């Protein structure tokens, strides 16, 4: 028992390393925010491309579908290793210097290259997950909405922008938050590139003094952020259900639609909510 307390919950170890751990967690937060925001945008773009009308755009639709299928099925770790290895090699003499350093070894906004490899990989992978969430949201908007929009003269693009996507986004905020929680946990993989995030710092402590308390402190820091997020998801879902119920009662049509689009979640996104 004593061993367990000392190995996992040595508060002395935690407080001695607090500033390093906090600095690491700050990197985790920044990775999550950059990766999260870019995935949100990229995922929406993919979903909208996937819904383009007409025969001429079919190749774009297939590209989008192929991309989504591929990156939902490839482990983030592999993407991360391929992105970091590829970009750094291609911008080195060994790879023929085919891309300039500022892309191959990015240090934008004063962040390190591993940080940006992480952001790019998270965006590639989570863009695919989020595209599926958006798609479920777009498909959950009743057909009549598109028809009504078209009947007052809107183009497909205008209808998507002013009518369909605003409704879809409202429906998909909870599942997107779930994806964000999963993304935040997955930032820890970037530590294998030597980025000093909270997991990297914890592992350093573990290998230096054979004590896991640094990693436990990291876990606690994650929970401080993810538990409130998970509660927020629950609250939003409950609110949406109340709203739908109310409109069902005051509305004498039978056109009630679902509140929660199904599917599109990465397999590990449900474990907190």
């Amino acid at each position, binding site marked *: 028992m004593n061993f367990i307390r000392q190995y996992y919950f040595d508060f002395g170890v935690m407080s001695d390393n607090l500033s390093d751990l906090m600095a690491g967690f700050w990197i985790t937060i920044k990775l999550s925010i950059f990766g999260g925001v870019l995935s949100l945008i990229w995922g929406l773009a993919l979903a909208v491309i996937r819904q383009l009308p007409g025969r001429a755009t079919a190749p774009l639709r297939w590209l989008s579908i192929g991309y989504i299928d591929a990156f939902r099925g490839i482990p983030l770790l592999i993407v991360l290793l391929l992105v970091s290895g590829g970009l750094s090699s291609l911008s080195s003499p060994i790879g023929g210097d085919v891309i300039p350093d500022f892309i191959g070894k990015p240090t934008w906004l004063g962040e390190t290259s591993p940080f940006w490899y992480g952001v790019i990989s998270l965006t590639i992978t989570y863009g695919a997950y989020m595209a599926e969430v958006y798609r479920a949201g777009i498909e959950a908007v009743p057909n009549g909405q598109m028809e*009504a929009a*078209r009947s*007052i*003269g809107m183009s497909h693009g205008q209808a998507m922008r*002013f009518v369909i996507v605003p*409704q879809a986004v409202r429906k998909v905020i909870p599942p997107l938050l779930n994806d964000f929680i999963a993304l935040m946990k997955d930032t820890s993989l970037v530590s294998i590139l030597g980025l000093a995030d909270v997991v990297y710092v914890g592992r350093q402590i573990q290998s230096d003094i054979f004590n896991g308390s640094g990693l436990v402190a990291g876990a606690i820091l994650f929970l401080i952020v993810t538990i409130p997020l998970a509660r927020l998801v629950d609250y939003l879902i409950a609110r949406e259900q109340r709203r739908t119920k109310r*409109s069902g009662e*005051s*509305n004498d049509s039978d056109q009630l639609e679902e509140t929660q689009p199904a599917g599109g979640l990465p397999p590990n996104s449900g474990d907190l909510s």
Partner: protein
Amino acid sequence: MTATGESVLRIENVHKRFGSLKVLQGVDLTINRGEVVCVLGPSGSGKSTLLRCINLLEPPEEGRILLEDKEITGKANQDGIDFVRRRVGMVFQQFNLFPHMCALDNVTVGPLKVLDKPKSEVEPKARALLDRVGMSAKVDEYPDRLSGGQQQRVAIARALAMDPHVMLFDEVTSALDPELVKEVLDVMRELASEGMTMIVVTHEMGFARDVSDRVVFMDGGKVLEEGPPAEVLGNPQQPRTQKFLGLVLDH
């Protein structure tokens, strides 16, 4: 009731199928300016499909549709869709209001985004339209706060905001509780009396008899009979029409 004899819409031999299901099998119909035409027929006879062909929500496969003497069907008509949707308004059975916009925004979004008109011009006009359909007290309400009849009246105002030359109504009272039907029909009656050209798919025989200039009976994707309401409703010639009217009038 102010038909001038000048044709606004000419539908010639229009065919439409979904897969192997032939839904429209050669529809011919001419609509004159200011005319109110009611389309009757059993469920599945192709009434909705006909309206959806007229505003090109479903492009017909064969035949022609001419709107104000311009052909809107056919491959050569990429601008046809724009031409039609700016001249033809449609009101749906399920209202299809935009639920994330208040009543006023539902009415203004078309002129603002599609016609690029300034807000200072669009908003007063939208308020006037909402007043005209008796909704001036509810301009800021969202659709889920409105009854079906109120939603349908906002939907009519939304279509009118685009200054359509022709209005299509697809069973616009069928989803309403009986006590809400009249408020919507009254708005349509008034529109008709102001000279709007209207094609009205309906099961409201009273409306067809009192308001329309002409009644069209459809079955099996064809127009079987058409004429003044008194004749088609009072003395139908085709057995199918007699049977249909018998069924409806008995109930």
